[in-house]
């Protein structure tokens, strides 16, 4: 569910938020932040959805994608 959200929104996430991190739970967006605020975002996810496993992923920049190719 979370992977599907990430894949579906991947182009706009890369365009608008490349270099940041995304946290999702059960297909709901908990937040997007820089790595310095990631721990707070994860704590928020675990507090809001204590029984669920959060999805935590880096959002690559366009440049980083071209590097890996």
């Amino acid at each position, binding site marked *: 569910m979370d*992977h599907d959200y990430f894949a579906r929104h*991947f*182009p706009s996430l890369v365009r608008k938020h490349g270099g940041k991190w995304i946290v999702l739970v059960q297909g709901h967006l908990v937040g997007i932040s820089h790595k310095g605020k*990631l721990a707070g975002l994860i704590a928020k996810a675990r507090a809001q959805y204590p029984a669920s*496993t959060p*999805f*935590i992923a880096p*959002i690559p920049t366009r440049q980083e*994608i071209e590097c890996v*190719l």
Partner: protein
Amino acid sequence: MRSLDFPYTRLGALFLPIVPVTITSRNVTFRTDAYVDSGAFYSIFRSELLNSLELRKEQGRIKMLKAADGKLIRGYLFRLTLEIGNIKLRPLIAFSDQLNVGFNLLGRHTVFSSFDEVAFNERRKTVSFRLSN
């Protein structure tokens, strides 16, 4: 033969073999995505994820790894539980804060090698992990 098939993630004209994985340390589990990288020996994840696993990098074994650009980067190796689909593995995963790639990378060592076959179908835009019954 069991086969886990994942469609590529699309970015404009690019199609990327990114798959969902679940990673577990002693007490903590989360899901993330990883780029399936047949050119990588070790699986290398972003070091920011260590905090989420309640691990400190000092607890891992230091390993110098050669990045795609030829530079050596420092990684910290941990043996963790990694699930791809419903297949549970115990691979060695390196975490690095010098990984200048915006992805977690799934490599051959103890991930690809846990399967009989990892196949990229560029026409169908899928990556498949196959295992004998």
